[in-house]
């Protein structure tokens, strides 16, 4: 169990705690004005100088001897900030976790606060120029995004029911996208995204720069060597390079240190050879989110 579950999970996983989805929590944190300000110019988050440093050439900056470590420390501190004095032009307290599809569905059906909307994925829009209505936002954030026309999908229903949201998640899973659930800001949860490397802002910072914007799931994938037929269908689905086909063994092998536990490989497997096991049960990756 990660430290966010300890703090905000009420005895379970943080994203399964109904309190974190409640309108009361959002109101007590006074979030409407904050989120409106944050979303108005969200695309500027990489360009804007935050504490004197912008993300332009971030990799070079992080490699600088002492300053690099200082930047890393301050970015981590910003992402995980729980202070009430948040600055809306930064991504304060905005981080997420990978979840398998069944938990995304569970959240959508039971926990997400109304109204539920779908909107264009901001990351994909700003980094790839592609309009793809895959992000599902709910609660207070829905009202905020509905006022920003550039995120509203054309020729498509924006406000959706829980069933439609589950269907949309399912469709994204079929396409090979990873479900993630997001604090924005911690501990208020208001989005489930269907992310894709490399254009997802969160996964980019995690995979390329090792910043903890996205945590790995509470699970890891495990192959049953007897059932795997070596069809390689799962290999093409993994975005994290954790799975490969071994010609010697004539089956796939999984690198647990790279596995994010999203379950995409399991969902495509025709032979039910892959299952998700709780991260805590595997000593090598226990506690390594």
């Amino acid at each position, binding site marked *: 169990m990660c430290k966010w579950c300890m703090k905000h999970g009420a005895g379970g996983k943080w994203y399964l705690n109904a309190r974190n989805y409640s309108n009361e929590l959002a109101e007590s944190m006074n979030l409407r004005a904050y989120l409106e300000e944050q979303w*108005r*110019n969200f*695309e*500027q988050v*990489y*360009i*804007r100088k935050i504490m004197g440093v912008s*993300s*332009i*050439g*971030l*990799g*070079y900056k992080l*490699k600088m001897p002492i300053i690099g470590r200082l930047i890393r420390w301050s970015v981590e501190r910003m992402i995980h900030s729980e202070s009430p004095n948040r600055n809306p032009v930064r991504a304060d307290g905005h981080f997420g976790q990978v979840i398998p599809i069944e938990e995304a569905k569970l959240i959508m059906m039971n926990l997400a606060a109304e109204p539920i909307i779908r909107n264009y994925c901001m990351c994909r*829009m*700003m*980094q*790839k*120029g*592609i309009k793809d209505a895959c992000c599902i936002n709910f609660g207070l954030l829905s009202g905020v995004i509905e006022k920003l*026309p*550039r995120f509203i999908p054309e020729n498509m229903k924006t406000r959706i029911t829980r069933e439609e949201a589950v269907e949309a998640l399912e469709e994204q899973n079929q396409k090979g996208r990873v479900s993630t659930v997001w604090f924005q800001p911690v501990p208020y949860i208001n989005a489930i995204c269907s992310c894709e490397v*490399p*254009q997802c802002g969160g996964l*980019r910072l995690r995979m*390329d720069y090792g910043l903890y914007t996205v945590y790995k799931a509470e699970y890891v994938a495990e192959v049953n060597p007897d059932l795997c037929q070596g069809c390689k269908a799962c290999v093409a689905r993994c975005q994290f390079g954790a799975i490969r086909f071994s010609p010697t063994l004539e089956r796939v092998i999984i690198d647990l240190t790279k596995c994010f536990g999203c379950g995409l490989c399991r969902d495509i497997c025709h032979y039910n050879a892959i299952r998700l096991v709780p991260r805590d049960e595997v000593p090598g990756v226990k506690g390594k989110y």
Partner: protein
Amino acid sequence: MGKTKIKIDYSKCGNATGGIDPRSCGKCLFVCDPAVFVRHPAIGVKEENPYDPRCWQVTAVWLDLCTRCGKCVEVCPQKAITVSW
């Protein structure tokens, strides 16, 4: 590998300075495999109004991930991008 520099000539790309509107183009964004570019409302130009079409521009943000393939230079209809190292 030394540092990669990607320069974008905003007199050719970016509506505020007389170039084309990057929101109607976006070819460099699409063609870049490591997704180095970000399209965003410019800071300081028309900050009070993010819907002003003139305030959008493209910046190369993740410079260290650039693989120097040169596709963006080729694809840019305005020849606004130069990559050097």
